[in-house]
């Protein structure tokens, strides 16, 4: 892709796919105006951000399909209709540059582009779907009549279990190694036998998406290498500032560096838990005090949160040790648990500094029996949630609003309302990170302390 300043763009080559859904295999041989470079990317970013928000709010697949169609229409149309496809491809490749640079960025971009691809695929016609499947070169084979007859009963059981119509005599099924369709296997949406999954026509999106994701993942690593080795330097006056600015927008702080309010000491924790922790962390904290133990998921979620809040590693070790000693003894704590706390602070193993979990990550976790992590607005029963909110001091009117949001699966909005009720002040930005809840709360509460002094 060649970037030129303020010239009329000319298309030299058509895109690399017959259908309107491109494969993004190669950067297109196009000349792009510098302004378009940025504008196209911002438009696409709006689409991706919209998808990200919707997923965090737990929207259902049908809702997602409509949302994607609307977002795409609203943002990705070009004044000249024939340029639509080019805008699609160009914006994708620009964002690759932007989001290849760290693992967190790559992960986010990969998830959103994959989701976008999935719903655009589903929105396409059967013909488009079939054509795209051939382009992708997938390791699957349509099964024969005999195979179908042998598996028919099982295939019908699967269909019935999801309230799907039973497969007809001429239904097409693809036989595929189960490794290719992990999400279908995970949801028990396919019959598998001796390592092969029997995938129905309407499920092939899973195959396509898996392959798309895998291709993009590899491409991003390569892009990162090229960026670091040549492009960044070459383009330091032109593209690099734009690329770096683009990556700052929309994702917000990740709370891995705590600068604002200095350090928190252990003796403050109980009081802070009551005044400034969001419900998810307060629940974990209370359970830890009560049981003197937390399972792994809880240790991670709470531990990283406390790190983001400003708890130093030495204090963290002392804090967890004091609690766990009641249950497992100090010696066992040192042997079995201290390592992973140091690991979280980047002092062991890979020495990655792990970042505290965002709401999106917490909401999509799956706490099992004995676990206390996750998002209470999502994972608690209504009864338990009401009790917990009551203990936080949420009044009855606010409680109804919160519960109403939960019923509509707007978990983060529910948490925002809780924040507003507890602090008697509004939170316009909305909560999307537990550490954000804490820092906003701290900001509101702290001035009072200073005045007293």
């Amino acid at each position, binding site marked *: 892709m060649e970037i030129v300043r303020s010239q009329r763009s000319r298309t030299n080559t058509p895109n690399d796919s017959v259908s309107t859904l491109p494969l993004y295999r190669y950067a297109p041989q196009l000349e792009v105006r510098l302004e378009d470079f940025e504008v196209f990317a911002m438009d696409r970013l709006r689409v991706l951000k919209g998808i990200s928000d919707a997923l965090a709010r737990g929207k259902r697949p049908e809702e997602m399909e409509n949302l994607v169609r609307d977002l795409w229409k609203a943002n990705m149309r070009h004044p000249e209709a024939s340029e639509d496809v080019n805008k699609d491809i160009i914006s994708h490749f620009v964002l690759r540059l932007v989001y290849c640079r760290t693992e967190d960025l790559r992960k986010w971009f990969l998830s959103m582009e994959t989701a976008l691809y999935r719903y655009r695929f589903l929105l396409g016609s059967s013909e488009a779907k079939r054509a795209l499947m051939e382009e992708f070169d997938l390791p699957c084979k349509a099964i024969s009549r005999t195979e179908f007859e042998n598996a028919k009963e099982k295939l019908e059981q699967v269909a019935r*279990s999801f309230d799907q119509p039973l497969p007809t005599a001429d239904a097409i099924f693809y036989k595929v190694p189960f490794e290719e369709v992990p999400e279908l*296997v*995970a949801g028990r949406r396919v019959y598998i036998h001796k*390592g092969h999954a029997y995938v129905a026509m309407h499920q092939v999106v899973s195959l396509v998406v898996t392959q798309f994701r895998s291709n993009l993942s590899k491409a991003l690593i390569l892009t990162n290498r090229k960026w670091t080795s040549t492009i960044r330097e070459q383009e330091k006056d032109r593209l690099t500032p734009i690329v770096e600015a683009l990556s700052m927008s929309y994702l917000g702080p990740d709370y891995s560096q705590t600068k604002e309010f200095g350090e928190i000491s252990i003796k403050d924790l109980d009081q802070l838990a009551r005044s400034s922790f969001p419900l998810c962390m307060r629940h974990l904290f209370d359970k830890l005090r009560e049981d003197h133990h937390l399972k792994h998921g809880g240790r991670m979620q709470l531990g990283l949160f406390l790190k983001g809040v400003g708890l130093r590693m030495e204090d963290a070790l002392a804090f967890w040790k004091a609690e766990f000693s009641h249950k497992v003894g100090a010696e066992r704590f040192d042997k079995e648990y201290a390592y992973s706390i140091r690991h979280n602070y980047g002092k062991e193993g*890979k020495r990655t500094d792990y970042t505290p979990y965002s709401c999106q990550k917490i909401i999509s976790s799956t706490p099992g*029996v004995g676990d206390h992590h996750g998002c209470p607005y999502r994972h608690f*029963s209504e009864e338990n949630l009401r009790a917990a909110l009551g203990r936080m001091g949420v009044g009855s009117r606010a409680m109804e609003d919160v519960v109403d949001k939960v019923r509509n699966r707007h978990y983060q909005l529910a948490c925002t309302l809780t924040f507003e009720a507890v602090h008697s002040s509004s939170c316009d930005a909305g909560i999307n990170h537990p550490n954000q809840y804490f820092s906003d709360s701290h900001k509101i509460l702290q001035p009072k302390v200073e005045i007293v002094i």
Partner: protein
Amino acid sequence: MTKEESKNGSDDMLIDGPKQGNVIPDGFNPNYLKVYYGRLFPHADIFKWMSYGNDGRHPACDKSYFGRREFSFTLDNDIYLRFQSFNSESELENSIKEKCPSKIDIGPVYSVDPAKRHAYAQGGDNVFAPVERELIFDIDITDYDDVRYCCSGADVCLECWPLMTVAIKVIDTALRDDFGFDHILWVYSGRRGVHCWVCDGKARRLTNEQRGAIADYFRVYKGNENSNKKVSFPGPLHPFLVRSYTEVLREFFEEKLLLSQNLFSTEERYEKILSMIPDESVTSELRGKWQENRRSSNSKEDINFFRWEQLKNTLQSGKQKVVFVFPLTQKIVKSWIQLQYQPCLSFYGNLTREILEWMLIMNGRKPHLGNQLGFSDHHSCSLC
């Protein structure tokens, strides 16, 4: 050397007893380890297993394969040595005998010999990264504490161990029939559970996502004490669930567990079960019957069986086809009551993706082969 042996032939059997008397110290003694590694530990078998055929002579053998496997040793003073690797059977054997680890963990096979890892960058083309790792399941009897009244914690008895057997049957069948794996080793973990090692090449090369998918395939009940206990699966079931029910679970529940754990015998216990049923009219009808008849009129029949039959009949007479979940267990095995044309209670092997993930990366936590002395007899690994 057991206590019995030492008592019976006490004077003869003592080798290095203390001067005080004929007492052989109970519990662990580091000298035993020396003997164990010297005479009992199957060095050759481990080497052969972990080589997966690469110790042969034909051209396709990868001579570097065994040397790329990480082992880690826990030494007597709790020192934990990671990234131990060996290029031959004798190197492995000598190191074990010399260090006498109290625990040996087997890690993944890396892209290069772990001893050389510092020479490789984290990113780029030449990475030091895990490339193969067996698929491992870890089932712990404490995950059943919710449904066994005979024991709790690390205790196990003949009444509750069958819960483990059932889980093993369900998982083993699915691994072979559904996923097509052949080389599966089930082994007692030494304390309170079992480990399952799936060693097929395909299994060793699974990604984290694929392992997670297998775990989710087994998972039935998602929840804990905070969430709603009533989870329903309306309608018919996936072939895996159907097979597990008909071939293993129904019989086990109705003929063994019901009675051995006295699931309906007291109010506290039957309330646990009633709390799973979403239909209030059903639960209050049953509660009414059971509160009155502290002892069933037909005292020849066991009260648990009798109440279970009553529950089935009451559910069946309700016109709805209600499917509901009975969370008998914690992470590993989930059970549910399903009413379609007849109610049934089922248990499922389940695995957390956490366990599978860290089994791959060996991120400071330890899947262990080390503690139990010797292999179980009931394994089907064709390499042995």
